[in-house]
């Protein structure tokens, strides 16, 4: 869809809403832009599913680009592959879940949940809109997995199936477990509060001893699920940390829980007092609430994707002149494979065909397809443009030039040097201080009053339980994560915020990160273009998906195209068309047959000729992303800046001219060089932030303290990283970094606040003055006030940094 409407009134496609160009189709008095869209409409109308078009207008996606290959799903007949994809299978029914990136509106949900009306062998389907997933239940005797995928594909909802799907199933069970624990804690806490009420108002005495005992025993019963089930994660975490001879935040929490529980048991059973069970319940409830809040994730985004998510699941292999579609996992060295237009090269291979044009834009950032000759080695990850090519596989898919990156040590998670969270660092000091105070109080009282000494000792542990302290971190970070999400900066988890706050070095990838792959500077040199030749140009470039054609198309702006006779695109070379008997050519110097070529240091040239006479040429250069120069000068004030690029060194001059400030440039960097560069920064003790986009940055993203993948479409593939940044928000990077630093300050401030509570509580506890009522007031007040404080201050900072807009309609 283009923003600029053509002057001539044009019909919009009934299916996808795009302008119907000259060769539009009419069916049922409705216009369609292409055969594919018409086909989808036909299928839907035959099955009474035209409601699809009633829910949202033009809900479909243009089918112009759809691949028409009949046998491309053949690999789904492979039993191994099918079994790995299926969630469930019995003798009659199978369940399968597909990721369909195209799901975008209510119509999509409606249609995908009405699949059973099209094919009666489908029992039902259910869409998860947020995750863009659909689960389909079908009768496996009557319809095969392949046919289900084919059906989806005819409707325009082709599922995205990749290698990574075969290896793992997504697990929501972790999240469910925490929620269940929260539910249990909430239930027990609520009821304990009710049973403790009489105690607070001294009503228990009025009711008589029998009731009071009953309430206390009920509290003991209710505390059991909390202590033995809801709190279990904290025991595991604290135990693990002690075994590593460290003290994390969970250690003082566990100390507190144990002190609470044992002391309350002693109070209730031995002393006949009320105990502190209700405060214990409140403590766990608030802690778990913080945990759930922090667990916010961006369900559609995947941060752990490796090359497996990028490569196709199946390849076409030639066996004795016959094509056979096999799963990629079964591909072996020496196999001859066929790669068609727009398909990915799945493994490092030798080219058997005469020539190929490989688009490496995602791998290296190189914008234009690279011509390759017979016998050249082609790295995996490139995309063929043009005629089908034959290749012999040289290396298995996991051992290629690029995929080998993932075999590097950096991808062993344990080795990654991570900063210790702030809370864990202070908790060591905190725990020892509290223990010292407790022992000191015990030592002070022991000579005078033994029961009071025990009471002072345990109540110090109870009061010092860092409930407020440990809640300030999850709530601040969780809220920061949400605010970043609103600014289209999606973090993998809340811990990334703290690491982001300590960044002192920023490393940029050049192509695709600092430069904008979609934007270019275009200069035209030569004879002035008449309005007629502009129209011809428009007609030519409209046919092509080549990046240079797209740019010239943008440059032509509102020009309307005219009809040409047999306009054709010769892939990798140029475009040709005839108008009024004259042949117009647009393309490379070779294609247009230019005699006196122009030499330019950077960028690409596209020549325009009529009947062999060159009218002029376009000089197209990639440009910096909007705001890139401002970011560099802003960040350069207090951070070390580096630029890594796979390009040749001659770009340095133009780049350093555009980017002010002190930046160290490194050119000719291979993917492994980039990784090693980040490693050396780590060895120097720097906290590095790597911002990159392609597969070639994957190693560096992994090795850095924080790796940010920048992408134009967040739902598409991006290499494994700690955060995904929408390209629109690129200019906000300095604001994000500043905000992360603010969050850290907020955590520190709320630590101060909870220390205040602790001092008040402790001063009462050492004197042995703590009563259940006081405890029941102090605990929730300190927790809630810390939560309110962090939430309010993060939101306030977010507004001040311009990351939240108050007057959002």
């Amino acid at each position: 869809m283009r923003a600029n409407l053509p002057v001539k009134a044009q019909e919009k496609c009934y299916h996808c809403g795009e302008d119907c160009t000259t060769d539009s189709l009419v069916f049922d008095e409705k216009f369609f832009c292409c055969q594919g869209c018409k086909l989808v409409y036909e299928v839907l109308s035959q099955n009474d599913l035209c409601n699809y078009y009633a829910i949202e207008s033009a809900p479909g996606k243009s089918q112009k680009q759809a691949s028409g290959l009949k046998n491309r799903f053949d690999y789904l007949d492979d039993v191994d592959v099918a079994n790995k994809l299926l969630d469930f299978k019995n003798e009659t029914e199978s369940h399968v879940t597909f990721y369909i990136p195209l799901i975008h509106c209510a119509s999509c949900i409606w249609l995908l949940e009405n699949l059973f009306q099209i094919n009666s062998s489908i029992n039902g389907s259910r869409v998860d809109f947020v995750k863009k997933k659909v689960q389909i239940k079908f009768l496996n005797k009557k319809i095969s997995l392949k046919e289900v995928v084919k059906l989806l594909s005819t409707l325009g909802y082709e599922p995205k199936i990749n290698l990574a799907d075969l290896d793992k199933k997504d697990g929501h069970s972790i999240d469910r477990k925490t929620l269940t624990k929260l539910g249990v804690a909430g239930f027990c806490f609520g009821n304990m509060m009710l049973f403790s009420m009489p105690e607070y108002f001294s009503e228990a005495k009025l009711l008589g001893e029998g009731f009071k005992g009953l309430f206390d025993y009920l509290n003991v019963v209710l505390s059991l699920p909390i202590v033995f089930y809801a709190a279990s994660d904290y025991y595991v975490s604290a135990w693990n940390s002690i075994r590593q001879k460290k003290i994390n935040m969970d250690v003082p929490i566990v100390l507190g829980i144990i002190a609470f529980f044992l002391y309350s048991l002693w109070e209730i059973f031995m002393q006949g007092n009320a105990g502190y069970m209700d405060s214990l319940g409140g403590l766990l409830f608030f802690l778990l609430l913080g945990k759930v809040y922090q667990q916010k994730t961006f369900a559609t985004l995947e941060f752990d994707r490796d090359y497996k998510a990028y490569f196709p699941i199946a390849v076409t292999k030639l066996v004795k002149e016959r094509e056979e579609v096999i799963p990629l996992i079964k591909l072996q060295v020496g196999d001859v494979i066929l790669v068609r237009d727009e398909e990915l090269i799945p493994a490092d291979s030798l080219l058997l065909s005469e020539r190929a044009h490989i688009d490496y834009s995602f791998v290296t950032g190189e914008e234009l397809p690279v011509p390759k000759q017979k016998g050249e080695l082609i790295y995996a990850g490139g995309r063929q443009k043009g005629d089908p090519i034959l290749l012999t596989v040289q290396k298995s898919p996991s051992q290629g030039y690029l995929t080998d990156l993932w075999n590097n040590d950096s991808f062993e998670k344990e080795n990654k040097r991570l900063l210790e969270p702030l809370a864990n660092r202070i908790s060591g000091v905190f725990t020892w201080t509290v223990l010292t105070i407790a022992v000191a109080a015990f030592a002070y009282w022991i000579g005078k009053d033994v029961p009071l000494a025990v009471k002072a000792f345990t109540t110090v542990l109870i009061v010092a339980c860092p409930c407020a302290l440990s809640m300030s971190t999850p709530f601040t970070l969780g809220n920061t994560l949400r605010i970043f999400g609103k600014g289209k900066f999606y973090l993998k988890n809340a811990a990334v915020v703290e690491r982001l706050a300590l960044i002192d070095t920023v490393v940029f990838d050049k192509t695709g990160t600092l430069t904008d792959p979609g934007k270019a500077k275009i200069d035209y040199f030569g004879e002035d273009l008449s309005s007629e030749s502009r129209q011809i140009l428009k007609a030519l470039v409209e046919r092509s998906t080549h990046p240079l054609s797209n740019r010239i198309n943008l440059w032509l702006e509102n020009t309307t195209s005219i009809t040409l006779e047999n306009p054709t695109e010769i892939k990798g070379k140029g475009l040709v068309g005839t108008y009024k008997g004259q042949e117009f050519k647009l393309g490379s110097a070779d294609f247009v047959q230019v005699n006196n070529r122009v030499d330019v240091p950077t960028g690409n040239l596209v020549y325009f000729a009529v009947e062999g006479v060159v009218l002029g040429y376009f000089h197209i250069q990639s440009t910096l992303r909007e705001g890139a120069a401002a970011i560099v000068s802003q960040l350069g004030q207090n951070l070390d800046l580096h630029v890594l690029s796979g390009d040749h060194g001659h770009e340095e001059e133009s780049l350093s001219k555009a980017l002010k400030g002190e930046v160290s440039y490194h050119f000719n960097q291979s993917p492994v060089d980039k990784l090693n560069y980040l490693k050396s920064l780590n060895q120097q003790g720097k906290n590095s932030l790597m911002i990159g986009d392609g597969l070639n940055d994957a190693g560096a993203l992994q090795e850095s303290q924080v790796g940010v993948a920048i992408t134009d479409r967040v739902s598409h593939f991006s290499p494994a990283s700690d955060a995904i940044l929408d390209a629109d928000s690129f200019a906000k990077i300095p604001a994000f970094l500043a905000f992360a630093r603010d969050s850290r300050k907020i955590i520190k401030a709320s630590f101060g606040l909870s220390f205040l509570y602790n001092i008040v509580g402790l001063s009462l506890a050492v004197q042995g003055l703590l009563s259940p009522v006081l405890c029941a007031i102090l605990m929730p007040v300190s927790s809630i006030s810390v939560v309110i404080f962090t939430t309010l201050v993060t939101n306030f900072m977010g507004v001040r940094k311009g990351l939240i807009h108050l007057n959002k309609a």
Partner: protein
Amino acid sequence: MEVIFVLIAVSLVLAVTFLVLFFRAMKDGQFDDSYTPSVRILFENQPKKIIKDQPKKSKSYE
């Protein structure tokens, strides 16, 4: 006053019932997707069973 024993028992039974219902909802996946149901409920759907069993007739959906 002995009635309080009964009331406490009743209130606990009620609370446990809600807890069990919560577990069941959790198991059914009610908390997994909090958006799609809000769209789904607005569709004018025919009961699935009827459509599955009957031969298809042409209907107008507007």
